[in-house]
Protein backbone atom coordinates (compact mmCIF):
# COMPACT_ATOMS: atom_id res chain seq x y z
CA UNK A 1 0.00 0.00 0.00
CA UNK A 2 1.47 3.28 -1.07
CA UNK A 3 2.18 5.73 1.68
CA UNK A 4 0.04 8.82 1.52
CA UNK A 5 0.88 12.40 2.15
CA UNK A 6 1.79 12.94 5.74
CA UNK A 7 2.72 15.93 7.71
CA UNK A 8 4.29 14.46 10.76
CA UNK A 9 7.70 13.51 11.84
CA UNK A 10 9.10 10.29 13.19
CA UNK A 11 11.26 10.46 16.24
CA UNK A 12 14.78 9.48 15.35
CA UNK A 13 15.26 6.80 17.94
CA UNK A 14 11.94 5.21 17.04
CA UNK A 15 11.99 5.77 13.30
CA UNK A 16 11.89 2.13 12.29
CA UNK A 17 10.69 0.40 9.18
CA UNK A 18 7.82 2.26 7.60
CA UNK A 19 4.57 0.39 7.71
CA UNK A 20 1.28 1.88 6.76
CA UNK A 21 0.35 2.86 10.30
CA UNK A 22 3.79 3.90 11.47
CA UNK A 23 5.62 7.12 10.87
CA UNK A 24 8.60 6.73 8.60
CA UNK A 25 11.97 8.39 8.97
CA UNK A 26 11.70 10.38 5.75
CA UNK A 27 8.42 11.89 6.84
CA UNK A 28 10.41 14.58 8.58
CA UNK A 29 13.17 14.26 11.10
CA UNK A 30 11.58 15.68 14.18
CA UNK A 31 12.45 15.67 17.83
CA UNK A 32 10.98 13.33 20.37
CA UNK A 33 9.08 16.29 21.76
CA UNK A 34 5.44 15.69 20.93
CA UNK A 35 4.03 19.14 21.17
CA UNK A 36 6.55 20.74 18.87
CA UNK A 37 6.11 18.51 15.85
CA UNK A 38 2.36 18.50 15.86
CA UNK A 39 2.24 22.20 15.06
CA UNK A 40 3.32 21.30 11.53
CA UNK A 41 -0.20 20.14 10.83
CA UNK A 42 -1.83 23.06 9.11
CA UNK A 43 -0.94 26.58 10.07
CA UNK A 44 -2.83 27.63 13.13
CA UNK A 45 -4.61 24.32 13.68
CA UNK A 46 -4.34 22.87 17.18
CA UNK A 47 -1.80 20.14 17.90
CA UNK A 48 -2.76 16.55 17.11
CA UNK A 49 -4.30 15.03 20.20
CA UNK A 50 -3.78 11.51 21.51
CA UNK A 51 -7.42 10.75 20.68
CA UNK A 52 -6.72 11.71 17.07
CA UNK A 53 -3.70 9.41 16.87
CA UNK A 54 -5.97 6.66 18.17
CA UNK A 55 -8.58 7.45 15.50
CA UNK A 56 -5.95 7.19 12.78
CA UNK A 57 -4.51 3.98 14.23
CA UNK A 58 -8.00 2.45 14.27
CA UNK A 59 -8.69 3.58 10.70
CA UNK A 60 -5.43 1.95 9.58
CA UNK A 61 -6.70 -1.41 10.78
CA UNK A 62 -9.14 -1.39 7.85
CA UNK A 63 -6.68 -0.26 5.16
CA UNK A 64 -6.93 -2.68 2.28
CA UNK A 65 -9.89 -4.51 3.87
CA UNK A 66 -11.82 -4.42 0.61
CA UNK A 67 -15.58 -4.68 0.35
CA UNK A 68 -16.28 -5.96 3.84
CA UNK A 69 -18.41 -4.82 6.73
CA UNK A 70 -16.47 -2.80 9.27
CA UNK A 71 -17.92 -3.19 12.76
CA UNK A 72 -16.38 -0.71 15.18
CA UNK A 73 -17.37 -0.95 18.83
CA UNK A 74 -16.58 2.15 20.81
CA UNK A 75 -16.49 5.77 19.86
CA UNK A 76 -12.93 6.15 18.61
CA UNK A 77 -13.12 3.01 16.45
CA UNK A 78 -16.37 4.39 15.00
CA UNK A 79 -14.70 7.68 14.09
CA UNK A 80 -11.78 5.69 12.67
CA UNK A 81 -14.08 3.52 10.56
CA UNK A 82 -15.76 6.54 9.03
CA UNK A 83 -12.39 8.17 8.44
CA UNK A 84 -11.17 5.06 6.61
CA UNK A 85 -14.30 4.99 4.49
CA UNK A 86 -13.96 8.69 3.60
CA UNK A 87 -10.29 8.36 2.66
CA UNK A 88 -8.33 5.21 1.83
CA UNK A 89 -10.94 2.46 2.24
CA UNK A 90 -13.99 3.68 0.29
CA UNK A 91 -15.28 0.16 -0.38
CA UNK A 92 -15.98 -0.82 3.23
CA UNK A 93 -19.55 -1.19 4.44
CA UNK A 94 -20.80 0.60 7.55
CA UNK A 95 -24.02 0.29 9.55
CA UNK A 96 -26.01 2.87 11.46
CA UNK A 97 -25.35 0.80 14.59
CA UNK A 98 -28.68 -0.95 14.16
CA UNK A 99 -30.20 -2.63 11.11
CA UNK A 100 -29.22 -0.37 8.20
CA UNK A 101 -26.16 -0.17 5.97
CA UNK A 102 -25.42 3.50 5.39
CA UNK A 103 -23.18 5.57 3.14
CA UNK A 104 -20.85 8.27 4.45
CA UNK A 105 -23.60 10.88 4.18
CA UNK A 106 -26.07 8.65 5.99
CA UNK A 107 -27.93 7.45 2.87
CA UNK A 108 -29.33 3.97 3.41
CA UNK A 109 -27.79 1.48 0.99
CA UNK A 110 -28.88 -1.79 2.53
CA UNK A 111 -30.65 -3.76 5.24
CA UNK A 112 -28.74 -5.76 7.83
CA UNK A 113 -30.93 -6.91 10.72
CA UNK A 114 -29.21 -8.99 13.42
CA UNK A 115 -30.09 -12.31 11.83
CA UNK A 116 -28.39 -11.27 8.56
CA UNK A 117 -25.54 -9.71 10.49
CA UNK A 118 -24.85 -13.11 12.07
CA UNK A 119 -24.85 -14.71 8.62
CA UNK A 120 -22.40 -12.06 7.42
CA UNK A 121 -20.15 -12.78 10.41
CA UNK A 122 -19.97 -16.46 9.54
CA UNK A 123 -19.55 -15.62 5.86
CA UNK A 124 -16.37 -13.87 6.93
CA UNK A 125 -16.74 -10.64 4.95
CA UNK A 126 -16.35 -8.49 8.03
CA UNK A 127 -13.64 -7.06 10.24
CA UNK A 128 -14.80 -6.29 13.76
CA UNK A 129 -13.04 -4.15 16.35
CA UNK A 130 -14.31 -5.16 19.77
CA UNK A 131 -13.57 -3.86 23.22
CA UNK A 132 -11.81 -5.95 25.86
CA UNK A 133 -12.23 -5.84 29.62
CA UNK A 134 -9.25 -8.22 29.73
CA UNK A 135 -6.87 -9.44 27.02
CA UNK A 136 -3.86 -11.74 27.30
CA UNK A 137 -0.65 -12.07 25.30
CA UNK A 138 -2.17 -14.52 22.81
CA UNK A 139 -5.26 -12.39 22.27
CA UNK A 140 -7.76 -14.21 24.45
CA UNK A 141 -10.33 -11.57 25.34
CA UNK A 142 -12.91 -11.25 28.10
CA UNK A 143 -16.04 -9.09 28.21
CA UNK A 144 -18.15 -11.51 30.27
CA UNK A 145 -17.26 -11.20 33.92
CA UNK A 146 -14.40 -10.65 36.36
CA UNK A 147 -13.55 -13.34 38.88
CA UNK A 148 -15.04 -16.80 39.17
CA UNK A 149 -17.63 -17.27 36.42
CA UNK A 150 -19.88 -19.31 38.73
CA UNK A 151 -20.21 -16.31 41.03
CA UNK A 152 -18.42 -13.33 39.54
CA UNK A 153 -16.99 -10.46 41.51
CA UNK A 154 -18.13 -8.21 38.67
CA UNK A 155 -20.67 -9.29 36.09
CA UNK A 156 -20.00 -7.57 32.76
CA UNK A 157 -21.77 -7.93 29.40
CA UNK A 158 -21.58 -11.67 28.77
CA UNK A 159 -19.75 -13.38 25.89
CA UNK A 160 -21.97 -11.62 23.34
CA UNK A 161 -20.73 -12.45 19.81
CA UNK A 162 -17.04 -12.71 20.69
CA UNK A 163 -16.81 -16.50 20.16
CA UNK A 164 -18.49 -16.40 16.74
CA UNK A 165 -16.58 -13.28 15.68
CA UNK A 166 -13.14 -14.62 16.47
CA UNK A 167 -13.72 -17.98 14.76
CA UNK A 168 -15.16 -16.48 11.59
CA UNK A 169 -13.87 -13.05 10.62
CA UNK A 170 -10.80 -10.87 11.20
CA UNK A 171 -10.94 -9.36 14.67
CA UNK A 172 -9.13 -6.41 16.22
CA UNK A 173 -9.46 -4.83 19.64
CA UNK A 174 -9.70 -1.32 21.02
CA UNK A 175 -8.61 -0.55 24.58
CA UNK A 176 -9.11 3.10 25.57
CA UNK A 177 -7.10 2.75 28.78
CA UNK A 178 -4.02 0.57 28.48
CA UNK A 179 -3.39 -0.88 31.94
CA UNK A 180 -2.43 -4.01 33.84
CA UNK A 181 -6.09 -4.52 34.71
CA UNK A 182 -6.82 -5.04 31.01
CA UNK A 183 -3.56 -6.58 29.76
CA UNK A 184 -3.43 -9.61 32.02
CA UNK A 185 -1.49 -12.87 32.11
CA UNK A 186 -4.70 -14.90 32.00
CA UNK A 187 -8.24 -13.70 31.33
CA UNK A 188 -10.99 -14.81 33.72
CA UNK A 189 -13.38 -15.95 30.95
CA UNK A 190 -12.29 -16.55 27.37
CA UNK A 191 -14.89 -14.89 25.13
CA UNK A 192 -12.78 -13.92 22.09
CA UNK A 193 -10.46 -16.80 21.20
CA UNK A 194 -6.68 -16.24 21.21
CA UNK A 195 -3.99 -17.84 19.08
CA UNK A 196 -3.02 -20.45 21.68
CA UNK A 197 -6.60 -21.75 21.83
CA UNK A 198 -7.76 -21.41 18.23
CA UNK A 199 -6.33 -24.79 17.19
CA UNK A 200 -6.75 -25.23 13.47
CA UNK A 201 -9.82 -23.01 13.22
CA UNK A 202 -9.73 -22.17 9.50
CA UNK A 203 -10.91 -18.55 9.69
CA UNK A 204 -9.38 -17.34 12.96
CA UNK A 205 -7.34 -14.14 12.57
CA UNK A 206 -6.53 -11.47 15.12
CA UNK A 207 -5.19 -8.41 13.39
CA UNK A 208 -4.35 -5.62 15.78
CA UNK A 209 -4.90 -4.14 19.21
CA UNK A 210 -5.09 -0.35 19.37
CA UNK A 211 -4.83 1.38 22.76
CA UNK A 212 -4.45 4.91 24.04
CA UNK A 213 -0.69 4.27 24.19
CA UNK A 214 0.23 2.19 21.18
CA UNK A 215 -0.59 -0.26 18.42
CA UNK A 216 0.06 -3.97 18.88
CA UNK A 217 -0.25 -7.08 16.75
CA UNK A 218 0.38 -10.81 17.19
CA UNK A 219 3.70 -11.05 15.39
CA UNK A 220 5.68 -12.12 18.45
CA UNK A 221 6.97 -15.64 19.22
CA UNK A 222 4.16 -18.24 19.01
CA UNK A 223 1.87 -15.47 17.76
CA UNK A 224 2.13 -13.53 20.99
CA UNK A 225 1.46 -9.83 21.32
CA UNK A 226 4.05 -7.51 19.83
CA UNK A 227 4.49 -3.75 19.97
CA UNK A 228 4.03 -2.24 16.51
CA UNK A 229 4.06 1.53 17.09
CA UNK A 230 3.96 4.03 19.91
CA UNK A 231 1.72 7.06 19.82
CA UNK A 232 3.96 10.16 19.87
CA UNK A 233 4.96 11.01 23.43
CA UNK A 234 4.68 7.42 24.71
CA UNK A 235 7.75 5.38 25.66
CA UNK A 236 8.35 1.66 25.50
CA UNK A 237 8.79 1.69 29.26
CA UNK A 238 5.37 3.27 29.73
CA UNK A 239 3.76 0.50 27.67
CA UNK A 240 5.69 -2.22 29.50
CA UNK A 241 4.66 -0.72 32.83
CA UNK A 242 0.99 -0.79 31.79
CA UNK A 243 1.10 -4.37 30.47
CA UNK A 244 0.69 -7.32 32.83
CA UNK A 245 2.67 -9.80 30.75
CA UNK A 246 5.97 -9.93 28.87
CA UNK A 247 5.42 -8.05 25.66
CA UNK A 248 7.43 -8.67 22.51
CA UNK A 249 9.22 -5.38 21.76
CA UNK A 250 11.27 -5.09 18.56
CA UNK A 251 14.61 -3.29 18.72
CA UNK A 252 13.16 -0.33 16.91
CA UNK A 253 9.58 0.76 17.41
CA UNK A 254 8.27 3.53 15.17
CA UNK A 255 5.75 6.18 16.08
CA UNK A 256 2.15 5.82 15.04
CA UNK A 257 1.88 7.87 11.90
CA UNK A 258 0.69 11.45 11.82
CA UNK A 259 -2.76 12.20 10.43
CA UNK A 260 -2.77 14.03 7.12
CA UNK A 261 -4.15 17.56 6.92
CA UNK A 262 -7.22 16.17 5.17
CA UNK A 263 -7.71 13.47 7.81
CA UNK A 264 -7.56 16.02 10.60
CA UNK A 265 -10.09 18.17 8.79
CA UNK A 266 -12.43 15.20 8.39
CA UNK A 267 -12.09 14.18 12.03
CA UNK A 268 -12.52 17.68 13.43
CA UNK A 269 -15.04 19.17 11.03
CA UNK A 270 -17.00 16.32 9.48
CA UNK A 271 -17.01 13.14 11.56
CA UNK A 272 -16.69 14.33 15.17
CA UNK A 273 -17.13 18.12 15.22
CA UNK A 274 -18.45 17.96 18.79
CA UNK A 275 -15.17 16.43 19.98
CA UNK A 276 -16.84 13.40 21.58
CA UNK A 277 -13.59 11.44 21.03
CA UNK A 278 -12.01 13.05 24.08
CA UNK A 279 -14.55 11.22 26.23
CA UNK A 280 -12.73 7.97 25.44
CA UNK A 281 -9.17 9.28 25.37
CA UNK A 282 -8.94 12.45 27.36
CA UNK A 283 -5.94 14.14 25.79
Amino acid at each position, binding site marked *: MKERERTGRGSEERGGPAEAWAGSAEAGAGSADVGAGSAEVGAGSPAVTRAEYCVVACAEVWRGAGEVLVSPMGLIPSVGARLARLTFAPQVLLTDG*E*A*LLVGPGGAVEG*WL*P*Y*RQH*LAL*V*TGGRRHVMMGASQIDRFGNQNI*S*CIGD*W*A*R*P*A*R*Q*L*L*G*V*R*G*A*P*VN*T*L*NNPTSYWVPRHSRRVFVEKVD*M*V*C*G*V*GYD*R*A*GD*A*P*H*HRLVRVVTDLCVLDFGGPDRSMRLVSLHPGVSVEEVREATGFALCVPDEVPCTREPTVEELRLIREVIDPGGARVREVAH
Partner: protein
Amino acid sequence: MTAEEAVSRLESGMTLGIGGWGSRRKPMALVRALLRSDVGDLTVVSYGGPDVGMLAAAGRIRRLVTAFVTLDSIPLEPHYRAARERGAFELTEVDEAMFMWGLRAAAHRMPFLPVRAGLGSDVMRVNPGLRTVTSPYEDGETFVAMPALRLDAALVHVNRADRLGNGQYLGPDPYFDDLFCEAADAAYVSCERVVDTAELTKEAAPQSLLLKRHTVTGVVEAPNGAHFTSCAPDYGRDEAFQKRYATTAWPQFAARYLAGDERAYRSAVGEET
Protein backbone atom coordinates in the same frame (compact mmCIF):
# COMPACT_ATOMS: atom_id res chain seq x y z
CA MET B 1 -56.90 -12.02 25.57
CA THR B 2 -55.55 -9.86 28.36
CA ALA B 3 -51.99 -9.92 29.65
CA GLU B 4 -53.34 -11.54 32.83
CA GLU B 5 -55.02 -14.28 30.82
CA ALA B 6 -51.82 -14.95 28.90
CA VAL B 7 -49.79 -15.17 32.10
CA SER B 8 -52.42 -17.44 33.69
CA ARG B 9 -51.42 -20.05 31.09
CA LEU B 10 -47.84 -20.05 32.37
CA GLU B 11 -46.67 -22.31 35.15
CA SER B 12 -43.78 -22.27 37.54
CA GLY B 13 -40.84 -24.32 36.31
CA MET B 14 -41.49 -23.61 32.63
CA THR B 15 -38.86 -22.78 30.03
CA LEU B 16 -39.88 -19.34 28.82
CA GLY B 17 -38.49 -17.55 25.76
CA ILE B 18 -38.69 -13.76 25.67
CA GLY B 19 -38.37 -11.94 22.32
CA GLY B 20 -36.80 -8.61 21.44
CA TRP B 21 -33.11 -7.87 21.92
CA GLY B 22 -31.43 -6.01 24.79
CA SER B 23 -33.57 -2.97 25.48
CA ARG B 24 -35.44 -3.22 22.18
CA ARG B 25 -39.06 -4.28 21.60
CA LYS B 26 -39.29 -6.37 24.72
CA PRO B 27 -42.77 -7.63 25.74
CA MET B 28 -42.57 -5.57 28.92
CA ALA B 29 -46.34 -5.42 29.58
CA LEU B 30 -46.36 -9.25 29.59
CA VAL B 31 -43.29 -9.27 31.84
CA ARG B 32 -45.04 -6.85 34.21
CA ALA B 33 -48.08 -9.14 34.23
CA LEU B 34 -45.77 -12.05 34.99
CA LEU B 35 -44.31 -10.09 37.90
CA ARG B 36 -47.84 -9.59 39.27
CA SER B 37 -48.40 -13.36 39.18
CA ASP B 38 -46.72 -15.91 41.41
CA VAL B 39 -45.08 -17.78 38.54
CA GLY B 40 -41.43 -18.49 39.29
CA ASP B 41 -38.67 -21.09 39.10
CA LEU B 42 -38.37 -20.22 35.40
CA THR B 43 -35.77 -21.13 32.84
CA VAL B 44 -35.63 -17.88 30.87
CA VAL B 45 -34.24 -17.87 27.31
CA SER B 46 -33.57 -14.32 26.14
CA TYR B 47 -31.21 -11.94 24.36
CA GLY B 48 -31.35 -10.21 27.68
CA GLY B 49 -32.47 -6.71 28.59
CA PRO B 50 -34.63 -5.28 31.36
CA ASP B 51 -36.94 -8.31 31.02
CA VAL B 52 -34.15 -10.42 32.50
CA GLY B 53 -33.16 -7.68 34.97
CA MET B 54 -36.67 -7.44 36.41
CA LEU B 55 -37.31 -11.18 36.58
CA ALA B 56 -33.90 -11.69 38.18
CA ALA B 57 -34.47 -8.92 40.69
CA ALA B 58 -37.84 -10.42 41.59
CA GLY B 59 -36.31 -13.86 42.10
CA ARG B 60 -38.31 -15.58 39.36
CA ILE B 61 -35.38 -17.13 37.49
CA ARG B 62 -33.95 -20.53 38.30
CA ARG B 63 -31.80 -20.68 35.18
CA LEU B 64 -31.01 -18.13 32.48
CA VAL B 65 -29.96 -18.97 28.92
CA THR B 66 -28.38 -15.93 27.24
CA ALA B 67 -25.45 -14.42 25.36
CA PHE B 68 -25.63 -11.06 27.15
CA VAL B 69 -27.82 -8.85 29.28
CA THR B 70 -27.73 -5.12 28.48
CA LEU B 71 -29.82 -1.96 28.50
CA ASP B 72 -28.02 -0.82 25.30
CA SER B 73 -27.65 2.86 26.21
CA ILE B 74 -26.61 1.65 29.68
CA PRO B 75 -24.25 -1.21 28.81
CA LEU B 76 -24.51 -3.16 32.06
CA GLU B 77 -27.94 -4.18 33.40
CA PRO B 78 -27.65 -3.33 37.12
CA HIS B 79 -30.31 -5.68 38.52
CA TYR B 80 -29.01 -8.60 36.47
CA ARG B 81 -25.48 -7.83 37.62
CA ALA B 82 -26.50 -7.73 41.24
CA ALA B 83 -28.34 -11.04 40.91
CA ARG B 84 -25.36 -12.70 39.22
CA GLU B 85 -22.94 -11.37 41.80
CA ARG B 86 -25.01 -12.86 44.60
CA GLY B 87 -25.31 -16.17 42.75
CA ALA B 88 -29.08 -15.89 42.50
CA PHE B 89 -29.59 -18.32 39.60
CA GLU B 90 -27.86 -20.74 37.24
CA LEU B 91 -26.52 -19.42 33.98
CA THR B 92 -26.19 -21.07 30.58
CA GLU B 93 -23.97 -18.58 28.79
CA VAL B 94 -23.68 -19.07 25.02
CA ASP B 95 -22.62 -16.96 22.08
CA GLU B 96 -25.17 -14.82 20.17
CA ALA B 97 -24.97 -17.08 17.11
CA MET B 98 -25.15 -20.27 19.17
CA PHE B 99 -28.31 -18.88 20.75
CA MET B 100 -29.86 -18.20 17.34
CA TRP B 101 -28.98 -21.69 16.09
CA GLY B 102 -30.47 -23.18 19.25
CA LEU B 103 -33.79 -21.45 18.51
CA ARG B 104 -33.57 -22.45 14.86
CA ALA B 105 -32.91 -26.07 15.77
CA ALA B 106 -36.01 -26.04 17.97
CA ALA B 107 -38.08 -24.39 15.22
CA HIS B 108 -36.96 -27.09 12.78
CA ARG B 109 -37.43 -29.93 15.31
CA MET B 110 -33.72 -30.72 15.06
CA PRO B 111 -31.89 -32.00 18.17
CA PHE B 112 -28.97 -29.69 17.36
CA LEU B 113 -27.41 -27.63 14.59
CA PRO B 114 -23.68 -27.29 13.89
CA VAL B 115 -22.27 -23.84 14.51
CA ARG B 116 -18.78 -22.40 14.05
CA ALA B 117 -18.72 -20.62 17.38
CA GLY B 118 -17.80 -21.55 20.90
CA LEU B 119 -14.79 -23.79 20.24
CA GLY B 120 -11.66 -22.50 21.95
CA SER B 121 -13.71 -20.20 24.17
CA ASP B 122 -14.76 -20.73 27.78
CA VAL B 123 -18.33 -21.25 26.59
CA MET B 124 -17.20 -24.89 26.38
CA ARG B 125 -15.82 -24.80 29.93
CA VAL B 126 -18.90 -23.30 31.56
CA ASN B 127 -21.26 -25.57 29.59
CA PRO B 128 -19.70 -29.00 30.09
CA GLY B 129 -22.74 -30.62 28.48
CA LEU B 130 -21.99 -29.08 25.08
CA ARG B 131 -20.87 -31.59 22.47
CA THR B 132 -19.10 -31.17 19.15
CA VAL B 133 -19.80 -32.68 15.76
CA THR B 134 -17.36 -33.33 12.91
CA SER B 135 -18.19 -32.74 9.28
CA PRO B 136 -18.55 -36.08 7.42
CA TYR B 137 -17.20 -34.43 4.26
CA GLU B 138 -13.59 -33.88 3.14
CA ASP B 139 -13.14 -30.66 5.15
CA GLY B 140 -13.50 -32.61 8.41
CA GLU B 141 -14.11 -29.41 10.37
CA THR B 142 -15.33 -29.68 13.95
CA PHE B 143 -18.30 -27.61 15.10
CA VAL B 144 -20.27 -27.09 18.26
CA ALA B 145 -23.48 -29.14 18.17
CA MET B 146 -25.76 -26.45 19.58
CA PRO B 147 -28.73 -28.20 21.22
CA ALA B 148 -32.24 -27.08 20.38
CA LEU B 149 -33.62 -24.38 22.69
CA ARG B 150 -37.13 -25.79 22.85
CA LEU B 151 -39.49 -23.53 24.82
CA ASP B 152 -42.65 -24.27 26.78
CA ALA B 153 -43.84 -20.77 26.02
CA ALA B 154 -42.70 -17.59 24.29
CA LEU B 155 -43.58 -13.95 24.96
CA VAL B 156 -43.01 -11.39 22.19
CA HIS B 157 -44.19 -7.88 21.35
CA VAL B 158 -44.83 -6.50 17.85
CA ASN B 159 -46.30 -3.33 16.37
CA ARG B 160 -49.54 -4.76 14.93
CA ALA B 161 -51.42 -8.02 14.96
CA ASP B 162 -54.83 -9.29 13.99
CA ARG B 163 -57.00 -11.32 16.37
CA LEU B 164 -55.91 -14.55 14.71
CA GLY B 165 -52.28 -14.09 15.67
CA ASN B 166 -50.78 -12.75 12.46
CA GLY B 167 -48.14 -10.38 13.82
CA GLN B 168 -46.39 -7.49 12.10
CA TYR B 169 -43.21 -5.56 12.86
CA LEU B 170 -42.84 -2.08 11.40
CA GLY B 171 -39.37 -1.15 12.63
CA PRO B 172 -36.03 -1.87 10.98
CA ASP B 173 -35.30 -5.19 12.69
CA PRO B 174 -37.50 -8.27 13.27
CA TYR B 175 -34.99 -9.50 15.89
CA PHE B 176 -35.76 -13.21 16.38
CA ASP B 177 -39.40 -13.08 17.45
CA ASP B 178 -40.60 -15.47 14.75
CA LEU B 179 -38.02 -18.04 15.87
CA PHE B 180 -39.12 -17.69 19.50
CA CYS B 181 -42.72 -18.42 18.46
CA GLU B 182 -41.71 -21.35 16.25
CA ALA B 183 -39.51 -22.82 18.99
CA ALA B 184 -42.31 -22.70 21.59
CA ASP B 185 -45.25 -24.96 22.41
CA ALA B 186 -47.32 -21.84 23.09
CA ALA B 187 -46.64 -18.23 22.08
CA TYR B 188 -48.29 -15.11 23.48
CA VAL B 189 -47.96 -11.99 21.36
CA SER B 190 -48.64 -8.52 22.62
CA CYS B 191 -48.98 -5.69 20.13
CA GLU B 192 -49.37 -1.94 20.09
CA ARG B 193 -52.67 -2.26 18.25
CA VAL B 194 -54.95 -5.07 17.15
CA VAL B 195 -56.21 -4.41 13.62
CA ASP B 196 -58.39 -6.19 11.08
CA THR B 197 -56.48 -8.67 8.95
CA ALA B 198 -56.96 -6.57 5.82
CA GLU B 199 -55.42 -3.57 7.60
CA LEU B 200 -52.08 -5.38 8.02
CA THR B 201 -51.06 -5.05 4.38
CA LYS B 202 -52.88 -1.82 3.60
CA GLU B 203 -49.84 0.35 4.23
CA ALA B 204 -47.05 -2.13 4.97
CA ALA B 205 -45.51 -4.74 2.70
CA PRO B 206 -46.34 -8.42 3.29
CA GLN B 207 -42.77 -9.19 4.34
CA SER B 208 -43.45 -7.19 7.50
CA LEU B 209 -45.78 -10.05 8.56
CA LEU B 210 -43.27 -11.66 10.90
CA LEU B 211 -45.51 -13.98 12.93
CA LYS B 212 -47.90 -16.48 11.43
CA ARG B 213 -51.06 -17.38 13.29
CA HIS B 214 -50.31 -21.12 13.43
CA THR B 215 -47.37 -20.33 15.72
CA VAL B 216 -49.31 -17.94 17.96
CA THR B 217 -51.54 -19.02 20.84
CA GLY B 218 -52.88 -15.72 22.07
CA VAL B 219 -52.87 -12.02 21.15
CA VAL B 220 -52.85 -9.23 23.72
CA GLU B 221 -53.48 -5.62 22.79
CA ALA B 222 -50.98 -3.65 24.86
CA PRO B 223 -50.44 -0.05 23.77
CA ASN B 224 -47.02 1.11 24.93
CA GLY B 225 -46.50 -2.53 25.83
CA ALA B 226 -42.75 -2.47 25.17
CA HIS B 227 -42.19 0.54 27.44
CA PHE B 228 -39.50 1.48 28.47
CA THR B 229 -37.70 -0.38 25.69
CA SER B 230 -37.89 0.85 22.10
CA CYS B 231 -40.68 -0.10 19.69
CA ALA B 232 -39.81 1.63 16.43
CA PRO B 233 -41.52 3.29 14.66
CA ASP B 234 -44.26 3.64 17.28
CA TYR B 235 -41.87 5.02 19.90
CA GLY B 236 -38.25 5.08 20.90
CA ARG B 237 -36.72 3.95 24.16
CA ASP B 238 -37.76 6.02 27.20
CA GLU B 239 -34.19 6.82 28.17
CA ALA B 240 -35.11 8.95 31.16
CA PHE B 241 -37.30 6.24 32.61
CA GLN B 242 -34.76 3.52 31.84
CA LYS B 243 -32.19 5.54 33.74
CA ARG B 244 -34.59 5.76 36.68
CA TYR B 245 -35.07 1.98 36.51
CA ALA B 246 -31.31 1.45 36.46
CA THR B 247 -30.58 3.78 39.37
CA THR B 248 -33.48 2.96 41.69
CA ALA B 249 -33.17 0.18 44.24
CA TRP B 250 -35.38 -2.70 43.11
CA PRO B 251 -37.79 -2.72 46.11
CA GLN B 252 -38.48 1.00 45.67
CA PHE B 253 -38.89 0.65 41.90
CA ALA B 254 -41.23 -2.31 42.26
CA ALA B 255 -43.31 -0.57 44.92
CA ARG B 256 -43.59 2.62 42.91
CA TYR B 257 -44.31 1.17 39.46
CA LEU B 258 -45.23 -2.49 39.66
CA ALA B 259 -47.58 -2.73 42.63
CA GLY B 260 -50.69 -2.10 40.55
CA ASP B 261 -51.94 -3.13 37.12
CA GLU B 262 -50.79 -1.90 33.71
CA ARG B 263 -53.04 1.14 33.95
CA ALA B 264 -51.46 2.05 37.28
CA TYR B 265 -48.00 1.56 35.72
CA ARG B 266 -48.84 3.91 32.91
CA SER B 267 -50.19 6.57 35.19
CA ALA B 268 -47.17 6.29 37.53
CA VAL B 269 -44.87 6.67 34.53
CA GLY B 270 -46.99 9.56 33.25
CA GLU B 271 -46.77 11.44 36.53
CA GLU B 272 -43.00 11.58 36.15
CA THR B 273 -42.90 13.11 32.68
